[in-house]
């Protein structure tokens, strides 16, 4: 094998990692190094240190340990049958890159994943070694996210959780059929099994036993996963139901959606066109509604199974439930306020607080920060009452088309 320089390895192994959507450094415990014995801190919220021209935040050094892989997942640039350039970091190289970048305030920490070399256990134990070295030898107190290999031994997952803030196991695809077809070596059972394991250990670490001793520390920032959108025919409805299931069953912090991206040397099993990025955007909005607005997956995904690309899912829901509007902003309960287009959770809290002191008028909503252009047709309060809701087509037209920054070029 050719001997590669460090910049070459970094270039190849960052390039191979860029299809992973997650770069979050939030959640978990707060740490610092004011004691002078180590380096790093976590803030709870996470910080973006740069933005790439693809509009994504750069918060972590996101690299693969190696892009050699013995598996053959059709959607992946690193699959064994792809002719991509290969490289492999040593444990020390990743440790040193993480620390040197961290000391210069480029990053919040490390997000390490890997292609599978030799065996899942071999690979997982190398990744764990990176995390252990950072924590034990270098006293690194920044953020570590490890992508866990589902078939790795439970002891390795336990150790990964000891050093990492977050673990993630990718479900990859929304349906079992698609997974069998496109990722022949992977199985839903194994993936779910590993997620259940992570969940159980995370809960044990939080519980004290009767004698007051604690189970070992385990990934305090929880687990997340990623689903590829548009590589298989699954509908948005199926995707959201899958997410909802994952949130409930495995206590996931986040599900990331990644619009299937064209990759060099693509497999013939894949669609040739990329799904519109706006589809991914709508899925994130819908996911957000499920997590923060009390929406249920079955409420958001329309009967056709696809989200409306032209308007956001909250507006689409309101248009489909016109009989419930307009809402009296001075009387409606929190749950109903949350369903008004143009009014987010922050504004709802401000409305509830202000309402205790006086009756709100139209101008107050403006000051509170509601997007009245969107809210107007759906609300009533002193100073404003909507005329009869215009018919569906007109109302829709008012909000479509999608914002322009979502188009590709």
């Amino acid at each position, binding site marked *: 094998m050719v001997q590669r320089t460090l*910049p*070459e390895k*970094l*270039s*190849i192994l*960052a390039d191979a*990692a*860029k*299809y992973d959507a997650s770069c979050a450094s939030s959640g978990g415990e707060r740490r*610092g*190094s*004011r*004691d*002078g*014995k180590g*380096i*790093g*801190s976590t*803030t709870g919220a996470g*910080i*973006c240190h*740069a*933005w*790439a*021209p*693809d*509009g994504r*935040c*750069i918060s972590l*050094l*996101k690299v693969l340990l190696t892009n050699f892989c013995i598996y053959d997942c059709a959607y992946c640039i690193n699959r064994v049958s792809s*002719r991509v350039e290969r490289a492999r970091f040593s444990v020390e190289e990743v440790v040193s890159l993480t620390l*040197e*970048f961290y*000391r*210069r*305030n*480029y990053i919040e920490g490390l997000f390490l994943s890997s292609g599978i070399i030799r065996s899942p256990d071999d690979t997982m134990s190398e990744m764990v070694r990176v995390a252990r070295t950072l924590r034990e030898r270098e*006293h690194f107190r920044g953020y570590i996210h490890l992508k866990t290999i589902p078939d790795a031994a439970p002891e390795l997952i336990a150790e990964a959780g000891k050093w990492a803030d977050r673990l993630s196991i990718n479900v990859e695809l929304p349906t079992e059929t698609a997974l069998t077809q496109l990722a022949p070596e992977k199985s839903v059972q194994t993936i779910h099994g590993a997620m259940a394991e992570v969940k159980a250990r995370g809960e044990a670490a939080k519980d004290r036993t009767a004698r007051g001793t604690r189970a070992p520390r385990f990934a305090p920032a929880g687990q997340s996963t990623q689903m590829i959108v548009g590589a298989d025919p699954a509908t948005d409805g199926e995707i959201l139901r899958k997410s909802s299931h994952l949130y409930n069953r495995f206590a996931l912090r986040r599900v990331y959606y990644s*619009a299937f*991206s*064209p990759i*060099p*040397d693509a497999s013939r099993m894949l669609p*040739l066109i*990329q799904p519109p*990025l706006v589809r991914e955007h709508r899925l994130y909005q819908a996911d957000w509604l499920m997590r923060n607005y009390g929406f249920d997956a079955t409420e958001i995904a329309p009967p056709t199974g696809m989200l409306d690309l032209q308007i956001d899912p909250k507006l689409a829901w309101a248009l489909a439930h016109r009989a419930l509007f307009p809402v009296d902003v001075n009387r409606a309960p929190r749950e109903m306020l949350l369903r008004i287009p143009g009014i987010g959770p922050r504004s709802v809290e*401000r409305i509830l*607080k*202000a309402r205790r*002191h006086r009756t709100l008028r139209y*101008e*107050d909503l403006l*000051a*509170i*920060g509601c997007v009245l252009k969107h809210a107007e047709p759906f609300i009533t309060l002193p100073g404003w009452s909507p005329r009869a809701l215009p018919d569906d087509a007109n109302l829709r037209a008012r909000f479509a088309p999608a914002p322009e*920054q*979502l188009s*590709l*070029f």
Partner: protein
Amino acid sequence: MQITLPRIGTVAAWRQQVRKLAAAGIDPQAVIWSVGAAAPDLFATAAPAPGVATPLMLSLEAVDGIEMALLHSDPERFSRAHALVLRLSKREVRWGDRSDPLMRRLLDQQKAVGREIHKMHGFVRFREVSPPGANRRAFAAWFEPDHPVLEAAAPFFARRFGDMDWLIATPTLTARCEAGEMRIEETEARQPPPKDAAEELWRVYFASIFNPARLMVKAMKSHMPQKYWKNLPEADLIPDLIRSAETRVRAMHDPSAPAPETLPGGRMRKKLR
């Protein structure tokens, strides 16, 4: 009446003065605030006629909010906050009531300051300046914030970079942390420290993690406004990354197309076979 606040510890000095002014019952409109080098004792110079004292009673949330808003660059901030402190104490306005124009203005400035602090935490870039043979590594950075937020932003760095010495210089003040002791001082050299070697690796990373198939320049610029670019070592790569994105995407669809890529540092790498 003129009050000149010190450049270091501006907010604490303002608070002290407002307490005296309120006790003397002096009308906020009679005070002209500024920030500068010396802070002569105002009550030694001619003070306006005293009025009725206002006892100051503020919620903790209001105190925090006002102190943060005072880090804005708006020269009117001191007298605005002074007036608001009195009105809040007299219960003429409720903290957080955005229907009050003065309150809303202050809340907006508080938000702008919070954002600037957050951006500073993200965009400061250290360069290594360790003297040979030293047993602690040393780093320095140059940063130009829109608002004078250094004092509020600096403790974050002290918490994070415990085992190294560091310095962040802004056009007015410098935060310096040596052996775990942090202090704020006037800036001496108004210039960035010399480049260091790790910067080239960071630029390689920045160029490689970008997915050309998802170009969204507007989103990038809204989060990372161009005013910050000149002090970010990776930012001068951006125009080229944007320009070459379309060609790179086309090359992904058509594997027969040659797709040479220029990496930072001028090396060429054939991406596809």
